[in-house]
């Protein structure tokens, strides 16, 4: 059995609004990542992807609150720690995070070298600045960034370059898990490819041991990650390998997502691009039964009665739907014809 780097069991976190209403943005999420593997999280805006990323780091600041669940990084439990302890002993060394707007994360008045020093000195106040510089230069060169970047200000770099610099800085301490939250959605295709190449390099050279990649671009996930997990309204609705998820999605929501894919390949122009009608439910009072019931075209009255559990099938795949796999496959083949 291979080594599990990240194990999450029943993680539940909530936002408290200013009217003291609870919004359960991450609801009993359990996941595991093995060493050397990457996991993609897909889903539309507002379904809890980014909240899950924040919750996984254990970085809870109001309005986000931790409720229950366990997060184990390489055997070390980090759930329920105070934000200060998290910053000292988890961020950067156990888990690193690349936020959505990473390009705006750099203070425009400081040189890149200072950011690298900051990260290292925060964990080891006695580190030698000269050694830090040498190490940073070596690491940047290895990841294909010119050493001159270190002496530049962030405004002198292009968007793609800034994004890659942020990735290089956040992984300088060899974190075990890297959480990348839409790192390439603001970039054009060429810069995006460079960012992906860099993340691949980090994995291959062993600077990170596992990766979580969050995006809504499915063709990208298919090419980048080993497994894909689909989230809807704070819950995981399906998980499988990238290939299974793209070519054989079982949950109606995953299937809806896969049908919104656009790729520039001959013949793909002929298919009808279908959007899932409606919007995600309000998580202040989520539906009692299946959360996707209101938008699902295969809904039956039983769907709305009680919460649907995760069901395992085909050995490793899991999904959350009231219908059986055989039934769904039959319905889909009927739809396609």
């Amino acid at each position: 059995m291979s080594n599990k780097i990240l194990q999450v069991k029943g993680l539940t976190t909530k936002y408290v609004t200013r009217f003291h209403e609870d919004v359960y943005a991450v609801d009993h999420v359990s996941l595991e990542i093995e060493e050397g593997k990457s996991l993609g999280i897909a889903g539309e805006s507002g379904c809890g992807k980014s909240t899950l990323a924040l919750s996984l780091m254990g970085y809870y600041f109001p309005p986000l609150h931790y409720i229950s669940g366990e997060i184990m990084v390489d055997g070390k439990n980090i759930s329920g720690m105070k934000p200060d302890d998290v910053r000292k002993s988890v961020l950067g060394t156990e888990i690193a995070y690349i936020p959505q707007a990473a390009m705006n994360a750099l203070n425009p008045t400081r040189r890149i070298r200072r950011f690298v020093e900051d990260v290292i000195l925060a964990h080891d106040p006695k580190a030698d600045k000269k050694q830090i510089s040498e190490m940073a230069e070596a690491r940047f060169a290895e990841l294909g960034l010119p050493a001159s970047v270190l002496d530049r200000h962030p405004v002198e770099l292009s968007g793609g370059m800034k994004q890659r610099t942020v990735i290089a800085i956040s992984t300088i301490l060899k974190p075990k898990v890297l959480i990348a939250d839409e790192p390439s959605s603001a970039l054009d295709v060429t810069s995006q490819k460079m960012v992906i190449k860099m993340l691949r390099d980090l994995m291959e050279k062993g600077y990170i041991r596992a990766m979580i990649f969050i995006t809504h671009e499915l063709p990208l996930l298919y090419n980048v990650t080993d497994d894909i997990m689909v989230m809807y309204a704070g819950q995981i609705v399906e998980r499988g390998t990238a290939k299974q998820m793209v070519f054989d999605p079982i949950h109606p929501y995953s299937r809806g997502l896969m049908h919104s894919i656009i790729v520039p390949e001959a013949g793909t122009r002929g298919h009808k691009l279908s959007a899932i009608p409606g919007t995600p439910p309000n998580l202040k009072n989520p539906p009692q039964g299946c959360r996707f019931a209101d938008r699902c075209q295969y809904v039956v009255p039983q769907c709305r009665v009680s919460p649907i559990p995760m069901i395992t099938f085909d050995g490793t795949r899991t999904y959350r739907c009231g219908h059986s796999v055989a039934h769904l496959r039959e319905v889909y083949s009927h739809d396609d014809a």
Partner: protein
Amino acid sequence: MTMHEPQSQSRAAGAPQTPADVHSRPLCLSGKGVTKVFGVGGKQTLAVDHVDFAFHEGELVSIVGESGSGKTTLAKMLLGLLSVTEGEISFQGKPRDIRTRRAKKEYWKGIQAIFQDPFSSFNVFNKIDTVLLDCIHMTGGRRLPYAEKTRLMEEACSFVNLKFAELTNKYPFELSGGQMQRLMIARVFLLKPKILLADEPTSMIDACSRATILDMLLQLRDEIGMTILFITHDIGLAYYISDSVYIMEHGRFVEHGTADEVICAPKAAYTKRLIGDVPKIYEPWDLSTV
């Protein structure tokens, strides 16, 4: 396999169709030698370099290029927001005249735009009713009875799958990004311009809402006969939606033609690179070319 087969060339019902006669229709917007130079003296930047183009009525044209290739500069020149350094733009067969404020206002009745960032497209102090009422007033409906105005606004909202009753008395920031972008399309629906310039309208919203927005653009073209200029860096999107594609590199059009010609048999090296850089599903994605 629950997905479509990649090799099937037949168009499914509802998929975008190119009208057969689109390239023989009269020209809606054309340009000859359009150039834009920023800066003066020694620090000049050539943003758009002598481009020629011809967009037909009811055609959906995509302009594809990387960041910094001059797409948005060209769009701003077409809108009349930036002056043209050199060259001539013709609108409906006649040279465009936007020298006076009144002429510009007339021109903007014929050309409208949707921008990339829906959050900054609206005046934050105006309620949504005001936004839509303004459009009715602009098209000469100022003296209509209020019931008629409401009917028009409801019609526009239902065109973009929004409920007008839920929107009244709301401010734009109370909507989600996808809803705001749809509201922009509702504005366009009320104004019914000849040309719609969509500058990366889907790059800030998720893949699900993207399909809805694209469908609405196609509907605008088919039902109202609008010419749509779709500016994007995603060549997959351009392939899906457009009748003609223009590829832009460093301020020049390196290739143009119908969507099938350009994407399935690209000639320029730049087009090949752009297509190669997009993650794909049926073909392997080569990361070594970075």
